[in-house]
């Protein structure tokens, strides 16, 4: 998400996608109206550290000291055991994993939609020590080839291009300003069956 918005173009000075050019002599019968909510969020320390590590090219998570589940990104707590997690529970995560779920999105050209072709958003269960990232992009792979069990690896943006300005306190799984996406490793698939029940 960028700081620039549609309404920065000052109301209806530019037609929305799909609009035809207005007839300069026709009566004006409609008015574009942008309702806008702008949030400024102070980042919690756990997210701040996650973002700093991302810019340094490292993915981190927290391992719950009670159940052992790994949260990626770290949340500062385990919602299952209701215990706090801290830097002491930090683990560095793998750059490789396996697709456990996916959605193919066919973009509708609503106002502000920048994508035109179908694309995949996938969940990736990372190799040891674990953790699952959601809503990740797949690179170098036609959407029809995306499948559960596919082995993938992270493609990092060059250090000078890494941007964590859009990471907020609720953007779980967000690494998109630093990891461009995940590409198939070419290794044999893992059996899809074992991921059908995977949530975390």
């Amino acid at each position: 998400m960028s700081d620039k918005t549609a309404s920065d173009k000052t109301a209806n000075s530019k037609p929305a996608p799909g609009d035809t050019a207005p007839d300069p002599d026709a009566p004006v019968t409609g008015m574009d109206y942008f309702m806008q909510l702008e949030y400024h969020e102070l980042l919690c320390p756990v997210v701040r550290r996650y973002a700093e590590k991302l810019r340094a090219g490292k993915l981190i998570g927290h391992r719950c000291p009670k159940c052992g589940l790994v949260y990626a990104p770290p949340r500062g707590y385990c919602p299952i055991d209701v215990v706090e997690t801290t830097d002491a529970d930090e683990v560095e995560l793998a750059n490789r994993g396996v697709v456990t779920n996916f959605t193919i999105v066919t973009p509708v050209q609503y106002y502000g939609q920048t994508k035109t072709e179908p694309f995949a958003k996938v969940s990736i269960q990372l190799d040891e020590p674990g953790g699952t990232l959601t809503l990740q992009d797949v690179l170098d792979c036609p959407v029809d080839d995306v499948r559960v069990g596919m082995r993938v690896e992270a493609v990092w943006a060059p250090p000078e291009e890494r941007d964590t300005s859009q990471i907020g306190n609720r953007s779980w799984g967000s690494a998109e300003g630093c990891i461009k996406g995940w590409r198939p490793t070419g290794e044999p698939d893992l059996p899809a069956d074992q991921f059908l029940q995977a949530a975390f």
Partner: protein
Amino acid sequence: MGDALPTTTHIIEFPYTRTLGPVYSTFLTGLRDGRILGIRNRDGSILCPPTEWDPWTGDALDTSPAAFTEVGPGGTVETWAWVERPTRKHPFDHPFAFALIKLDGASTSLLHVVDAGAIDRMSTGMRVTARWKDDRIGHITDLAFVPEAS
């Protein structure tokens, strides 16, 4: 982008297109064509901005094209508020005034902006006149008011 931390900004935006109805359609079509239109009220007064109803009785007005009449482009500031630090949603990126402007020929006043440059150029009762944009689209921001040359 380390400077962006430790805060982040999220903007949620909903683009609507509002249907204008007979009166605002005529009014904004007029603005696009460089004319400010008022509507004739049942008591003979001229309302600008125009409305679909008599503001005192609620009776429906004649909204046919013949009911409209041109007002302005000059007018008198009835009251005003100076905006020292505009936000990005304001019409200017420099200080300006919001003002109630009673346009010449109108009986009511229009809430609009005066691009006066400095607060000491503003006063209640001052004369202003419309300054039109070249590229008009039929929107209230097609014009702004400026102090009338004395």
